[in-house]
């Protein structure tokens, strides 16, 4: 069965308004954004726990809410599973009773059979009689998932499913969760304020900010083609910079930045043709900046594009990688405080090149590694089909 979710919601609260529209298909949609952006509010509207002021919610062709048509199904009839932040397991009930809670309509024998099946699939055998407080964080997560999935919902909602766990557990449980969601194949909407989590778990990412959707796209597209500087900032992309357009062509854009002439590949899905002298936002991934070895002679201009000279003015050791802060050899205020570019090199490279002692470097960035961001008027368009 093919899954499809169409969401349009308006909800006004004192001091906050939610006004979003997005769609999702198969797999997991991750609602990502800072706390207080309206993500949990969206889940509550989807589940029917909160009534929107306007909008429409359609799950697999079933209209669950339509303000104009006066349709508002109660949460009991929506067939939507909800994994709450902190799980909200019933503390007075056993693991088996928690998981079987939503199976009352199926009759005693079938309820018991399904409970046993879910317990087995979740790897919770032997814990049937335990109470939630006697379980580990990971076991609780699986009970919460099992409880929500047991009635075979049309859609599963997960509110910050990993936030109740400590850091060491988070990563392994994130992979657990990913596996379970893939195995069950239930369409899911997940809320998180952690981009790594959104990226690892979501097939599609919907970026929330202050009650609005600023981009909704497949995860790869979001990372490589953020719709705007705001999205780039919110997903934690580094080296978001501003230059001035010299010449924009459908396949390339030439621009000026810190007295350098740079060339970037134009956005492949939407050729962006700003007039000369207009401001341009772009970003450079720190791991895609090359350091040119001094023993290799004169740099080959065909191979080494966007050449720049700079000096390491700061560095940070992240174990497997080093982050270097580079200030270009040009006058004027550096682009990012005391430095112009942040670059990342593997530890081995750092050691081989003896960066600890050698601070003056020539840099090169391939034109495909400079990502142009459409400027603000375009980014305000909000939802973008993915």
């Amino acid at each position, binding site marked *: 069965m093919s899954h499809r979710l169409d969401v349009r919601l308006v909800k006004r609260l004192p001091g906050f308004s939610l006004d979003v529209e997005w769609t999702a298909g198969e797999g997991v949609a991750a609602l990502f954004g800072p706390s207080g952006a309206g993500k949990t509010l969206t889940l509550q509207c989807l589940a029917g726990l909160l009534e929107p002021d306007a909008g429409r919610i359609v799950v697999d062709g079933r209209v669950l809410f339509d303000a104009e048509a006066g349709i508002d199904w109660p949460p*009991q009839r929506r067939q939507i599973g909800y994994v*709450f932040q902190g799980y909200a397991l019933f503390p007075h009930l056993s693991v088996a009773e928690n998981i079987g809670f939503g199976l009352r309509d199926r009759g005693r024998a079938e309820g018991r059979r399904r409970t046993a099946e879910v317990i087995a699939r979740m790897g919770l055998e032997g814990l049937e009689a335990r109470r939630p407080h006697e379980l580990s964080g990971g076991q609780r997560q699986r009970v919460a998932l099992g409880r929500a999935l047991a009635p075979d919902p049309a859609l599963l909602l997960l509110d910050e499913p990993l936030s109740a766990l400590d850091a060491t557990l988070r990563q392994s449980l994130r992979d657990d969760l990913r596996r379970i969601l893939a195995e069950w194949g239930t369409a899911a909407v997940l809320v998180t304020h952690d981009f790594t989590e959104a990226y690892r778990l979501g097939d599609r990412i919907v970026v929330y900010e202050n009650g609005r959707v600023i981009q909704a796209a497949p995860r790869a597209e979001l990372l490589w083609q953020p719709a705007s500087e705001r999205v780039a900032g919110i997903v934690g992309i580094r080296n978001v910079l501003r230059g001035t357009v010299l010449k924009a062509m459908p396949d390339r854009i030439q621009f000026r930045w810190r007295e350098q002439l740079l060339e970037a590949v134009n956005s492949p899905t939407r050729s962006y043709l700003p007039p000369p002298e207009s401001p341009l936002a772009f970003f450079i991934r720190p791991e895609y900046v090359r350091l040119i070895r001094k023993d290799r002679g004169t740099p080959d201009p065909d191979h080494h594009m966007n050449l720049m000279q700079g000096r390491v003015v700061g560095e940070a050791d992240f174990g497997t990688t080093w982050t270097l802060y580079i200030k270009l050899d040009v006058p004027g205020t550096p682009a990012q405080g005391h430095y112009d570019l942040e670059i990342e090199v593997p530890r081995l490279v750092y050691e081989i090149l003896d960066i600890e002692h050698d601070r003056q470097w020539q840099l090169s960035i391939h034109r495909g590694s400079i990502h142009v961001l459409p400027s603000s008027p375009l980014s305000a368009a909000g939802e973008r089909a993915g």
Partner: protein
Amino acid sequence: MSPQALSALWLSLKVSMVATALVALVGIPIAYLLARRRFWGHAVVDTLVTLPLILPPTVTGYYLIVLLGRRGILGAPLYAATGFTVAFTWYAAAIAATVMALPLLVRTAAAAIASVDRELEKAAFTLGRSEWRTALEVTLPLARNGILAGLVLAFARALGEFGATLMLAGNIPGKTQTVPLSIYTAVQTGESHEALLLVGLLTGLSCAVVVAAGRLGARAQ
């Protein structure tokens, strides 16, 4: 112990148990509504239920006479229809004790219900439970200790009721004379031995109740 004291003790226990049952029946739904619903008249219900805790018992008793006496607002039609009147029967003692004990249960139970995590109720809704089933299967079981503590306090309050009972039920030996009333009578007539015995009895019972309520309250946390 004199036959009179024994009958007072028996009557007191009967009245208190009936009153506690009535308090549970009426008070738990009121506590749930006060804790979980915002409705028109919320403050009025809250105030009315709490009032007997603040008012002098004789004032509450007076209102009960106005309501249930032979010529009372409810009492008169009842008398006209059946020839029965509540006043000066043990029913009156039970009703007076119920009204006086109700605030203790409602307050305690409402606090316990309000402290149940609402996410648990929402989880039950998404799993197909109506609000009514959710209250029975999730909210009330989780507020159980607080509700039991409230019932124990209500029982104790009913056992010690004096003023409102005197007003509505009178002080008829063997009929409406509960232990507190018989202590009063014993002191008035100089039967200090009898008074001391009953005072000791009531003190012991109350101590047991306080301990029980404390334990339940501690577990409710």
